[in-house]
């Protein structure tokens, strides 16, 4: 445990200072939130990957003879108005949700981290401009902004990605900027300058590695938000368009049959909940594991 004490004493401002003070594994094993989050995500991911193998039918296959069947043998989650198998659509919907969530989060990361590092490292007017842009974006409610963007660009996969990235970056940017500012104040940055390291080098080798922990945490919880937002946009008809299976769109189209066929809404709703919960649990667990201030 000597290493642990050493890790604690070195903690400066900011999250997750000596990332490798202890072996990674030991900090994560035994954290119930991480375990639960990973389990949920493993199920969702497995569903997405194995969808073609385990689905009882093709997700777009119409079977007009058996519309709105309740869950039962042959159709464990029932069928919808066109006789499509709900289980198959939920499974394939996992692919859409994960892929859209992942791509949107990657876009968010690229924009948010780049601008956050620029603002935090250079300060001055760069910082001012970036942060005022952040303020403007954060002043608008997330969903309203996403709706506006998606509506302006017209529904579809690309506009969903654009909308989600534009909604997600300001929060991340602000977080990264704050972390970078804390790191830049530390002596080893000055020491790196004193041995002749240039700006780009310092950012890539000293600043970024010291802000990875909060970025990892924000990415996990961010994935949950992206999936939720994609579902919301699709639910409002501004996102993924039929016949593509998306959980949000399924809830949207199932809503009008809610009284006759509640399974059309319940199962995709549960899937959304499982994925979002998984990412949020993982994010919370990671924060506990990586943030020295929250460690005992």
């Amino acid at each position: 445990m000597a290493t642990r004490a050493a890790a604690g004493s070195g903690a400066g401002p900011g999250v997750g200072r000596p990332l490798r003070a202890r072996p990674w594994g030991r900090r994560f094993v035994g954290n119930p939130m991480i375990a639960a989050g990973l389990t949920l995500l493993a199920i969702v991911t497995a569903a997405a990957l194995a969808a073609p193998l385990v689905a009882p039918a093709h997700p777009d296959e119409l079977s007009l003879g058996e519309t709105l069947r309740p869950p039962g043998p042959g159709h464990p989650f029932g069928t919808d108005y066109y006789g499509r198998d709900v289980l198959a659509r939920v499974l394939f919907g996992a692919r859409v949700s994960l892929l859209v969530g992942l791509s949107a989060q990657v876009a968010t990361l690229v924009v948010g981290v780049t601008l956050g590092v620029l603002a935090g490292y250079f300060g001055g007017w760069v910082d001012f401009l970036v942060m005022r842009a952040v303020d403007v974006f954060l002043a608008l409610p997330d969903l309203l902004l996403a709706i506006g963007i998606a509506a302006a660009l017209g529904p579809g996969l690309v506009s969903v990605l654009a909308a989600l990235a534009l909604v997600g970056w300001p929060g991340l940017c602000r977080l990264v900027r704050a972390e970078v500012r804390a790191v830049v104040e530390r002596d080893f940055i000055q020491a790196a300058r004193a041995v002749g390291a240039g700006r780009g080098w310092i950012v890539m080798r000293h600043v970024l590695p010291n802000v990875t922990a909060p970025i990892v945490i924000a990415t996990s919880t961010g994935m949950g938000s992206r999936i939720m937002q994609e579902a919301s946009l699709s639910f409002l008809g501004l996102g993924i368009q039929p016949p593509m299976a998306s959980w949000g769109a399924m809830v949207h189209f199932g809503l009008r049959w809610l009284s006759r066929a509640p399974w059309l809404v319940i199962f995709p709703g549960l899937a959304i909940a499982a994925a979002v919960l998984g990412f949020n649990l993982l994010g919370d667990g990671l924060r506990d594991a990586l943030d020295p201030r929250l460690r005992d």
Partner: protein
Amino acid sequence: MRMTAVEPALLEVRDLRAEYRTPRGRIRAVDGVSFSLREGRSLAIVGESGSGKTATALALLRLLPDPPGRITGGSVLYRGRDLLELEPEEMPGVRGREIAMVFQEPGGALNPVMTVGRQVAEAVLAHEPGLPPSQVRRRVIEALIQAGVPSPERRLGQYPHELSGGLKQRVVIAMALACRPAVLVADEPTTALDVTVQARLLDLFAYLQSRLGLALLLITHDLGVVARTADRVAVMYAGRFVETAPVGEFFRRPLHPYSRGLIEAARLTPTGGGALKVTEGGAVDLAHPPPGCRFAPRCRFGRTAAGRPCREAEPALTPVGRRGGRAGRPAAAGEGEVEEHLVACFLVGEDR
């Protein structure tokens, strides 16, 4: 460049000025500092916190955080080239390669998520980007050996938190040495360490000076460190040098009241009626320095200095004759500083 018989100084600082802009006003942290440094020699800048020692060191390398810091004048001639005239992009080529710096907190000066080997290697690669890994490794180990790091091979893969304070400082020194600089600026290099470790590091500095011909600029508040390491001393007060002298001469015959106060404080032998009278009071408010001599408000001779312009005019740094008489002309910046004893006080030469 100058027509002198002596070899030209490696580093020559002339009338360096730097200030911090704060809401309270401009704080002139470095206010006309001049000195020169030759190969293999060492100068210690001594002074209390806030006297501008660190600002001087940072300004040399143009590392003063801007904002709020800013260099406002003077020149820093390194091998005849004025560093203050260089483009900002040229400075990384000077830092580390020509003039390297060691910081006060060895713990903070190392990146916690990088191994020792990589950090020292980084200093090498910053100046020789294409060097093959085997050679980088050789240079890293060489630097660690020079800095007196025991079993350097084993350290390469270790992280800073696995090392003791003294060892961390040696690694920081190794980083500074890795690019084979000609000048080493050490800002309070031993302050954060305990006394035995301190002594060994000071021996290391002496060794580096004699072995590598390194010129050393040592920033400290510890006169023990000065006596042990420096060839020459400059006492800094409120952004200015108030006395500079060869180290032996300085301890034998300190002339400025502030220098005397520092030495008495270090010896822990307060004179007369009370403890450490001279250094009573706090540092000067550099945003609004007092008129006249900046030390006057704290000077023990302040009351008896009747007839002297202590409160009206600022005394210039002036050479002192060998027998303690006050020479008549002020010293030209950077002139013949190797042997000379200079002091900025109206009372020097008086009988007191």
